[in-house]
């Protein structure tokens, strides 16, 4: 017994109208998101939108005009790109993400190789990349892929529509109205200052006193390190990490960032100092075999002065500037000749800091 629809044409029209509106809305929203492009997935707009590494890194790698890519954790976020241009020349792009993982570096490098824009890659090697048991990707997967469905997902994504487009449009409107934004907000729109955290820490929140205050309260402290079989685990991770790069695609420069001596004292107390130091030698050897350069700033004198720091690991822009200078001059470049002595200096500095600040460790 077939049944005719009692709701008939009104309900049918309702259903068709519903799908027509949804389809039209999806098309209009996609077109609008494409035109605005808040995560720079199709084109680059500097000093226009609020930039957040999680969302714009992949777009910048694909679309920004650069020949040097600087990639790493919060240790590279304060790099001054103007100074870089002045000292090293070229067209640098720095992609820094707080607590970036090895997997994330690998994924971003894949995008960079695919974009084929850079001939030089600077990669910051935080030791946690090589010692941590977990290695996950926090970047939205659809922003790391370039297929049609991923693009559509970006254009219709929650973050785009509920978080960024409203704010970005407000920023554009304020700009058009000639309203000057506070420096802190304006900085968050700059590609050169992507992730730069210096304005988030005004005077009084950095330097020796602040570092010790955080240290005693265990704020901004580093994650605990599993020391069991650490040396072997790190070596295995180093092999896997170095194998992620395509050395024929350009010059690769790895660098160990200069954590404070206070960090190294803690590393000694917590039992991972020796593994961290020994594996650096292994890293340098393996990188050299692959034709990559390695800088090691961890024994530098600046690590002894806590006034150069925000906490036990994060150094202030003055140190970032100094690192750029070293890249230009070649200071702290690891060679067969100085590899061991650099580690000796690190040990001596750690002993010296401990002796000079014995009260901290009582």
């Amino acid at each position, binding site marked *: 017994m*077939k049944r005719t629809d009692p709701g*008939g044409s009104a*309900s049918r029209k*309702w259903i068709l109208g519903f799908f027509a*509106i949804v389809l039209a809305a*999806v098309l209009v*929203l996609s077109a609008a998101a494409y035109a605005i492009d808040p995560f720079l997935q199709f084109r680059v707009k500097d000093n226009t939108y609020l930039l957040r590494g999680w969302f714009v890194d992949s777009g910048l790698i694909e679309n920004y005009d650069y020949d040097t890519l600087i990639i790493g954790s919060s240790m590279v976020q304060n790099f001054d790109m103007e100074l870089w241009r002045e000292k090293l020349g070229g067209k640098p792009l720095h992609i820094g993400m707080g607590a970036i993982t090895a997997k994330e570096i690998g994924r971003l490098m894949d995008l960079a190789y695919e974009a084929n824009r850079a001939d030089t890659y600077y990669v910051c090697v935080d030791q946690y990349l090589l010692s941590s048991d977990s290695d996950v990707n926090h970047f939205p997967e659809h922003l790391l892929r370039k297929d049609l469905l991923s693009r559509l997902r970006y254009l*219709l994504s*929650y973050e785009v529509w509920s978080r960024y487009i409203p704010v970005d449009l407000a920023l554009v409107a304020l700009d058009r109205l000639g309203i000057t934004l506070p420096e802190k907000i304006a900085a968050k729109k700059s590609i050169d200052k992507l992730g730069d955290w210096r304005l988030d820490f005004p005077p009084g929140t950095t330097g020796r006193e602040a570092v010790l205050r955080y240290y005693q309260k265990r704020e901004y402290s580093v994650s605990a390190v599993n020391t069991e079989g650490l040396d072997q685990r790190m070596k295995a991770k180093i092999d896997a990490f170095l194998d992620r790069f395509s050395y024929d695609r350009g010059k690769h420069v790895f660098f160990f960032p200069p954590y404070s001596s206070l960090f190294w004292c803690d590393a000694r107390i917590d039992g991972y100092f020796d593994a961290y130091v020994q594996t650096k030698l292994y890293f340098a050897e393996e990188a050299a075999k692959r034709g990559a350069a390695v800088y090691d700033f961890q024994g530098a004198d600046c690590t002894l002065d806590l006034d150069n720091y925000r906490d036990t690991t994060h150094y202030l822009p003055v140190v970032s500037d100094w690192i750029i200078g070293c890249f230009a001059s070649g200071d702290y470049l690891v060679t067969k000749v100085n590899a061991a002595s650099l580690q000796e200096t690190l040990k001596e500095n750690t002993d010296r800091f401990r002796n000079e600040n014995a009260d901290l460790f009582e």
Partner: protein
Amino acid sequence: MVFSSYVFILAFLPVVLSVYYALSRLENGIYQRLFLIAASFFFYGYYNTSYLILIIASIAVNYGIALGIQKSRAKAGRLLLIIGILFNVGLIGYFKYYDFFVENINAVFGCSFTLRHLLLPLGISFFTFQQLSFLISVWHGEEKVERFRDYCIFVTFFPQLVAGPIVLYSEMIPQFKDERRRFFQADHFASGIWLFSVGLFKKAVIADTLALFADNGFGMTDLSLAAGWITALSYTLQIYFDFSGYSDMAVGLGKMFNIDIPFNFRSPYRSESISEFWRRWHITLGRALSTYVYKPLGGNRRGLARTCVNLFLTFLVSGLWHGAAWTFILWGALHGLFVVAERILKQPLRKIPKPVRVCGTFLLVTALWVLFRADGFGQALEVWRGMVAFGNPGISQLDTVVGTAAYIDFPLALDCVYILLLEAILLFVVFRCPNSSDLLDRFTPSRKTMVAAAVLFTVALLCLTRESVFIYFNF
């Protein structure tokens, strides 16, 4: 598979609906039902195929036992019923309560039995309870066992498979067998889309936004008064919009197939008492607990004292059904105690003005949800302490509860306005606006409802990139 996902909305559902109605051209409706069973198994096993073996085994064993009960004489039938109860309780006990049981044995007797960390099969509490209730109904002669395929569709029909509503065989199977319901009916289909859009919006837009606040709040320590209340309120609203949103989608999907699935919620937060709350919240669970636990215990037939004990035990079972943790058991016990207290103090409570009763019930339910959501008693105490921290208003903590800093670091004032305004609007919706059942009753295929449904659906679609699971999938 979850309803609020692209794969379900853009692939699974359109394909299943198209094939289902294409099959209606065949003379025999069996093919449609067989197809629905296959689609439901695909839906169930989408994320983990090993679940399929479990549900198929559960269905086969229960069907066999039900058939046995129907064909046996009283004594053998009773034995089969006991076997059936033991099988179902054993199944859920093993997968859901094994670790909880062992943990407690280890703690009390100082043993060190190994925990199994079993993966809880999706919706096991729902399909086990549904089948258990069927066995009991067959034993009482209230239900009749028919063909295996009918039983399969009763258990597996995907709109209600993993999180209810818990339906009765007698209210589902006649609908599937009704020849008129086999064919596409635009009026049903339109009302189904309408309700599905409302439910999807409730889940993907509202509940998932509130989930961020609740998760942030429950992760905090030393909560201020403001943070404590906003955290508790966020979860109270989240669980309502999450679960009722899911149920709306289930009812809406049923409508698309011309199947009426009962509503699970009728504005529960407007209740004047905890007893009334349970007549408006998760209605089909309440119905099942009343039929299969409360009444067999004696119900209200043996005097006030026994009634109170029966009520308390029923709520204890409800707490345990919701989760294998002491927090759930205490949550159920406290609800039971309040229901018992209401029963004893019926007359004096009636004298309290209605707005005060509604407000009091809402606050009580909110405070008890904290226990339901907390990872343990310590976390619940943290939030409760915040809710009475009158010396520490602590508006600034709302910044952490809102938690937008990870994306856009809005000023505190903006965060406060955002969260307070949002929760005020949602409270207005909960207390003053028509519920989904009313919306369905009043639905007409007008231009207004068409635009409203399309807007709700599209906004929800945008929010699906932050896919999440339904709270009640875990039960």
